[in-house]
């Protein structure tokens, strides 16, 4: 279900700009990025197919701008990592969504923690798969070495999801009792 109160294209462009420009602006601050929250918002507010398009375009284009594109096979894992986040968000958005209430802030906090964990677990597995001999010891080692970065990413995700994600979601999402939305839904049902 589409949740945005603005046209889909406008919302897509805004979320693309948040992810793309935020990533470039925060490039020097590792594990502090706006791509994850943009992916999350796109999946909360837009149809799944459009959300995936926004997700891929902001990662690919920012990678091209920063010179990462094609530089390493790890992008297979980073790209799929964001797509996994996008798919899970689309699947569970009916549970995550909420109104302008403290409960929604906590839901967004939990979402940031969960999605950063999923993403880092997947991409760390990619580091193991691409760079290390495939032994259980090395797998454990990669996750241990990645822990400091993962903790930082988790904490920064809390900030981006609550300071950026929550207000943007509240500003862009349609209200269930909005007469205009209700009319649109009635028209669709008819």
């Amino acid at each position, binding site marked *: 279900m589409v949740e945005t109160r603005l046209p889909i294209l406008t919302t897509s462009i805004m979320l693309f700009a948040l992810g793309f420009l935020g990533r470039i602006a925060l490039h020097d601050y590792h594990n502090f990025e706006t791509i994850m929250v943009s992916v999350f918002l796109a999946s909360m507010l837009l149809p799944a197919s459009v959300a995936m398009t926004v997700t891929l375009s902001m990662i690919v284009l920012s990678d091209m701008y920063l010179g990462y594109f094609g530089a390493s096979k790890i992008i297979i894992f*980073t790209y799929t990592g964001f797509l996994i986040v996008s798919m899970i968000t689309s699947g569970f958005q009916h549970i995550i969504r909420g109104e302008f209430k403290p409960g929604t802030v906590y839901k967004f906090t939990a979402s940031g923690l969960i999605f950063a964990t999923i993403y880092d677990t997947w991409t760390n597995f990619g580091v193991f798969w691409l760079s290390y001999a495939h032994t259980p010891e090395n797998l454990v080692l990669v996750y241990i070495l990645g822990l*400091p970065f993962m903790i930082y990413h988790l904490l920064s995700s809390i900030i981006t999801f609550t300071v950026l994600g929550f207000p943007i979601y509240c500003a862009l999402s349609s209200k269930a009792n909005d007469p205009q939305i209700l009319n649109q839904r009635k028209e669709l049902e008819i």
Partner: protein
Amino acid sequence: MSEVRNVIIAVLIVNSLAIGGILYEIGYFDEDESDISTIVTAKLVIKFKNLGENDTLTFESITTSESTAYGILLGGQTQGSYSVTATTHYEFGLFVESIAGWGTCGNCQDEDGFYWLYSVNDNDGGVAANRKVIRDGDVVEWNYTDEY
């Protein structure tokens, strides 16, 4: 209005915890402040494990004004007549690509499965080399190795 206040309080609570955690992570509360701009003198060892035990560069005393494992490596370039290239890794921060022509730089000789890893006083770094603070008398070892 009270809902707005409650939301603001909720945002402040979770962000205070997150910011506190980040400051703790970066060592803001450490008493011995992690100043990486002090001048230190340390021993630097560069081992090319792909070439055997004899191919090791050892510098008993390198002085650098960037007191990190990466700083001491850069500080030894003139004395050791070698060059260093590094890149910013997606997740792990600074990542040394090559030292003295071995590694993954454009014109380097690259040994499959070998990477540059460092240790300080025989302890694995655990963080990006440009964030690992070293002190006078430390032994910093850079290994081109396939043993992780």
